[in-house]
């Protein structure tokens, strides 16, 4: 026959879709993934000439053991969780808001205005509430701009929100160098520290922002699951055609949801400037807006799960800082560790959805030749 070039053998590895998997099996795979990540990390630490066990223990104690370290971990936890919650409704609507950074800054700018220039005119609780509201509106508006363009002209929100990040940074720089420059800072131009009355009060040693983000997480969970608006944004995310068929005004829902998303990011900006930084700078947003995307995906956009993931990441980040100082491990190496763990956690989802089939040891070839 004509097909002599056609050898008879199975492919070496095949990928096949799995059926339903029991929840406990999924968690075993996920835990195994974390374990493998730690193991791979250990190899790297060994290559750097350190004892992996000691390094790992130091990471945990460095982020949780003392009060100072716990406060430092919380300072990462609060904005990160807030930003992840902010992203949740937008992502659920498949509105790829990667502009949380800019929205955080917009909120921070608005809050800072009141902290710097109105603190004498307002009583402390009033001042804080005004800062909170101003931040929410500013962040919301910053997200509303790309949303309105998307609703009206179907522009790409990913690029639009991303670009607005740089605009926000530019505005902060301008304020720092110009109109808001502290008259007392001689060298490097910076913005004044906030007055005591513009700083968030503490609860158990940490600014009360932590209570706020936890409440927000629960509220967002309820909003997405049990409200009419949450239902609408979910339908729009799944299929715009179905939304229209059901009589939803898609444009309005997009704008409304984006505003909500931006407003929460704006509140995060307020929590950073009023809760921990006590001033505004170009780095106020601190990359939380981007890391929050990872958190949101790992949590599958579930705000309650986000709490756990954020706590985990906050501990890792703080721990990585600690081992930097204690073991003189370069900062980049700690980032590699965090990256590894995230990579393994996201990667293991593949094994939850698919299985690999290896070629069986049958001797097809010989028999056919």
């Amino acid at each position: 026959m004509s097909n002599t070039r056609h050898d008879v053998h199975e492919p070496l590895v095949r990928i096949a879709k799995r059926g339903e998997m029991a929840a406990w099996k999924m968690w075993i795979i996920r835990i195994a993934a974390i374990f493998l990540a730690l193991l791979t990390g250990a190899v790297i630490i060994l290559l750097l000439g350190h004892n992996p066990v000691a390094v790992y223990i130091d990471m945990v104690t460095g982020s949780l053991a003392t009060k100072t370290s716990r406060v430092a971990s919380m300072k990462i936890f609060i904005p990160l969780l807030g930003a992840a919650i902010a992203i949740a409704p937008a992502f659920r609507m498949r509105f790829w808001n990667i502009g949380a950074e800019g929205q955080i800054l917009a909120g921070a700018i608005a809050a800072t205005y009141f902290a710097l220039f109105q603190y004498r005119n307002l009583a402390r609780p009033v001042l804080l509430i005004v800062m909170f509201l101003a931040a929410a509106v500013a962040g919301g508006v910053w997200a509303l701009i790309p949303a309105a363009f998307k609703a009206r002209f179907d522009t790409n929100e990913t690029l639009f929100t991303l670009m607005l990040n740089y605009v926000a940074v530019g505005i902060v720089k301008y304020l720092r160098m110009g109109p808001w420059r502290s008259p007392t800072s001689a060298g490097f131009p910076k913005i004044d520290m906030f007055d005591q009355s513009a700083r968030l009060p503490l609860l158990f040693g940490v600014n009360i922002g932590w209570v706020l983000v936890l409440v927000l997480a629960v509220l967002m969970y309820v909003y997405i699951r049990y409200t009419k608006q949450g239902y609408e944004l979910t339908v729009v995310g799944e299929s715009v055609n179905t939304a229209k068929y059901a009589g939803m005004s898609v444009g309005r829902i997009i704008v409304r949801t984006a505003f909500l998303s931006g407003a929460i990011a704006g509140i995060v900006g307020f929590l950073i400037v009023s809760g921990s930084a006590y001033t505004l700078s170009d780095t106020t947003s601190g990359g939380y807006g981007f890391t929050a995307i990872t958190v949101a995906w790992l949590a599958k956009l579930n705000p309650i799960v986000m709490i756990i993931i954020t706590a985990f990441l906050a501990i890792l980040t703080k721990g990585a800082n600690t081992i930097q100082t204690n073991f003189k491990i370069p900062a980049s190496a700690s980032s590699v560790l965090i990256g590894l763990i995230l990579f393994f956690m996201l990667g293991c989802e593949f094994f939850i959805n698919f299985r690999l089939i290896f070629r069986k040891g049958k001797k097809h070839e010989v028999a056919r030749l």
Partner: protein
Amino acid sequence: MNPEIAIEMRDITKTFGNVVANNKVCLDVYRGEILALLGENGSGKTTLMNMLSGIYYPDSGQIFIDGKEVTIRSPKDAIELGIGMVHQHFKLVDNLTAAENIILGLKGKGRLNRKKVAEEVLEISRKYGFDINPNKKIYDMSVSEKQTVEIIKVLYRGANILILDEPTAVLTVQETEKLFDILRAMKKDGKAIIIITHKLNEVLALSDRVTVLRKGETVGTVLTRDATVMSLTEMMVGRAVSLNIERPEPVNPQPRLIVNKISCVNKDGVKVLDNVSFIAYSGEILGIAGISGSGQKELLESIAGLVPLSPGSSITYYPEGPDKPVELVGKRPLEIRKLGVALSFVPEDRLGMGLVGSMDLADNMMLRSYAEDRFFTNRKGPRHLAEEVVRQLHVVTPSVSTPVSRLSGGNVQKVLVGREISLAPKVLMTAYAVRGLDINTSYTIYGLLNEQKKNGVAVIYVGEDLDVLLQLCDRILVLCSGRVNGILDARTATREEIGLRMTGAKGGEHHE
């Protein structure tokens, strides 16, 4: 071994997760033969053929081509073995010509000789009786022409074994006849042909043998000359089924919806509806026939308030009793509903428009009720409704909390139709309500529509199977390029007449 055997598939098994799509399926095809592969939805026909064409790889079992065992790991392997598959959904590049599409992906040396390719294409065309212009761009082609390109594409690659997946689903009566002539010519030329289809009369008209699958297993193979519509149906379904569609006489028909001179221009500036007028009566099923893309979708969507219409268009709803008529044009879907217009719509794209695939049954019921909620959603009502639909329409689902995308096509449609009927409509529009459904479910849907008709609902049924349209409907409106090309009495009209009106070959009272 018989030298004439082209393909032999032995004990083929393929599973997807927990679903066994094919379980020890056997099939053989001889050269110079047309084999019809028959089976209900989800019986594993397409899966089996995808393993022949290299898209899937079997879990176990053997495939012999010309008596030699082979392994088909990719579509490339399949082409080398002379197997060509024409898929239900065409895989062509729109802005290339027919000839360019035909040679796309083939290895060649040096410069491309377009003239030579065109000649070769024409030679194949002459041999089997195709009618094609190799230099025509795909976007200028009709569905039938595109299909021709797909068939020539596999022949050009030297295919001796052709697989056609539901090739007549998108063709008119006349085009189907032409295709069958071509397939017979290929058969005479010694090619082995497998045709997947739902349409039993086509199986009887065309094939030599029929292999029937049911639930992923081979039920058996029979000679076509020994088979009848009844016997094949019984093999497919597993028991005897009555194939008569009931058609009760309309009782006291009243004008319910008067569509007057509606026109619609789509995004590309093409007039998709042109001066369409008709009346839908209560207690009647109005069928709408037409080649796909003749304006059916736009017609239903404009009544539902989903597409903007040109000025001068009017759609008026006449409620029962003394209430005033309502003009629907220019109103949004929710406004229409608030005015008390009981309009239900089963769209063509079930999971992309009528339902949300990733949501469960209960949440999908909410699509039609959530608007009345205030801030929090009422989940109890929709859940009860979902349970009711599951019970009454015998929807096969693990629970009402299962995402609808996990259900089979027939059950998805039952969920959608069930929800729309639950709204107690006065006008019920359905687009391709039985497309892709098996015989059993199709008859369930016909029964539901007849029930609505008896309740005095004005039913608008957009369909593609002319036999069904003729048996189920009271009147049939034929659409041709967005225009009404005749409204016929379904009790006296013939397939041929409708077919000719669909292509515009007959009628034309409305032509310029």
